[in-house]
C-alpha cells in the first residue's frame, strides 16, 4: 500500500471540505473494497477521508411509506433490523447475504452503492425498489444514480448521506452466487409497489445494474413466474468471463427472475 494522509471528520460538512480541497482524496465508508484496492496498489489517493467518525450518518428510520437507511449503516445492522424485516423483508434478507459476516459488520449501504461494483447486491435493491439517494447536495432518483460500471452520478465532492426506499407491496431478491467467491453472477430483485412493477438485474450487466423492461411489462399484466416464460434476455451488454458466458448469464437472469417472483408471492 502506498501511504496517504488520513482524516476522520466528525461531520459531513467537514468531510466535503476535505474532499473539495484535494481532488486526489478518496472517501472511505466501510473500506471493504477500498482497502483491498489500496493493498493491491490499484489506487493511489493522496488522502483518505474516513466517514466512520460521523455519527449522524448511522441509523434506520421507518415511516408509513418509506424506509430510510443512513449511508454508514452496516449490512449487519440492516439484516438484523426488526423494522426493516417488517417493512421490506426482501431488503433485510438481501443484506443478510452480502459477502460474509465480517464484511457485513464493516460494509455499508452508502459505500456499496457509491462504488457500484457490477456484482454488488445493493444496487439491485435500490433500482428495483425505486429508491431515492440522498446526498449532501441533492436527492437523486435510482434511475439516474447508476451511470455505468463503478460509476455513478455523484460529483467528486458529493457524499451519499441516506437511501430512502418506498415500501413495496411485494418484493424479493434471488441471486446465483459464484460457487467460489460467492459474488452474484446474476442477481434479480423484483418489486411491485408505488413505483409500479420494477425488475433490476445485478451481476450480469457490463455497465452494472440495469432494469429489465420486458419483464416489467409482462409482470405488470400478470404477476406470476409463468408470465416470464417467454420473456428473453438479450446477451448484448452482458458480462462474459471465466465464471459465466454471456449466454449462460442471460439464461440465469430468466431463472433468477422467476424464482424471485415466486418468492415474493
Amino acid at each position, binding site marked *: *500500500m*502506498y*501511504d*496517504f*494522509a*488520513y482524516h*476522520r471528520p466528525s461531520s459531513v460538512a467537514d468531510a466535503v471540505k476535505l474532499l473539495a480541497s484535494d481532488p486526489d482524496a478518496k472517501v472511505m465508508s466501510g*473500506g*471493504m473494497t477500498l*482497502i*483491498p484496492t*489500496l*493493498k493491491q496498489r490499484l489506487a493511489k489517493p493522496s488522502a*483518505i477521508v*474516513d466517514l*466512520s467518525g460521523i455519527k449522524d450518518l448511522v441509523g434506520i428510520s421507518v415511516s408509513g411509506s418509506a424506509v430510510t437507511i443512513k449511508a454508514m449503516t452496516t449490512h*449487519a445492522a440492516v439484516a*438484523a433490523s426488526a423494522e426493516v424485516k417488517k417493512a421490506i423483508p426482501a431488503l433485510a434478507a438481501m443484506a443478510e447475504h452480502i*459477502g*460474509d*459476516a*465480517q*464484511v457485513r*459488520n*464493516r460494509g455499508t449501504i452508502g459505500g456499496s452503492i457509491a462504488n457500484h461494483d457490477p456484482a454488488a447486491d445493493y444496487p439491485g435493491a435500490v433500482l428495483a425498489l425505486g429508491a431515492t439517494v440522498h446526498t449532501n447536495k441533492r436527492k437523486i432518483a435510482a434511475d439516474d444514480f447508476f451511470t455505468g460500471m463503478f460509476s455513478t452520478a455523484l460529483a467528486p465532492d458529493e457524499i451519499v448521506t441516506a437511501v430512502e426506499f418506498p415500501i413495496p407491496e411485494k418484493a424479493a431478491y434471488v441471486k446465483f452466487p459464484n460457487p467460489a467467491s*460467492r459474488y452474484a453472477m446474476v442477481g434479480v430483485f423484483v418489486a411491485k409497489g408505488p413505483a409500479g412493477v420494477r425488475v433490476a438485474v445485478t451481476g450480469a450487466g457490463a455497465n452494472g445494474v440495469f432494469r429489465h423492461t420486458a419483464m416489467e411489462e409482462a409482470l405488470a399484466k400478470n404477476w406470476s413466474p409463468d408470465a416470464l416464460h417467454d420473456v428473453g434476455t438479450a446477451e448484448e451488454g452482458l458480462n462474459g468471463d471465466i465464471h459465466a458466458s454471456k449466454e449462460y448469464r442471460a439464461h440465469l437472469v430468466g431463472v433468477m427472475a422467476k424464482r424471485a417472483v415466486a418468492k415474493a408471492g
Partner: protein
Amino acid sequence: MPKVSLTVNGKPASAEVENRTLLVELLREHLRLTGTHVGCDTSQCGACVVHVNGASVKACTMLAVQCEGAEVVTIEGLAAPDGTLHPMQEAFREYHALQCGFCTPGMVMSAIDLVQRNPQGLSDREIREGLEGNLCRCTGYHNIVRAIAAAQQVMHGKVKELPRAAE
C-alpha cells in the same frame, strides 16, 4: 508518525504507526500479539479475524488508525487469567476441530461472534453459512461445526459442561 491508542484484550495499548498500517500489522508487529494470523491478506480466508467493539472483523482489511479508541479482542484475550479456556476454545480442543491450526484463531473469533449474535441457537447449516468468511484447508469443517454446535450450548447457558465428543 500517527499514534494510535486503543484497548487490546482489556488493557490500554498504543503504538506509532503509519496511516497505511493495517490493524493486523499493529497487533502482530507492534504489539507482538502473533496469535492473529495472516493467511491470504486479501480479505477472504478469515485467519486474521478479531473483534473490534464487539463485532468480528478481518484485521487485514482495517487500518490501525481506524481503531483509535476502539476495544479490540484477539485470540490471546479469550482465556481466563488462570488459563481456563473460553468455551469455544475448549470445544475446538474437545472436538478436534483443528489439524494444522493456522485458521483456528480466526475460526474461534468468528464462531464466538456468530454464536453471540444468535441467542436462539444455530443449526449445523446455519453454522456452516456463518463461517463463509473463514477458510480451513485441513479439516473439511466437519469437526469445526460440531465444536461450535457444542460450544453454543455452554455459551447460552443451556448446559453447564461442554458435551463430550463421542469416543
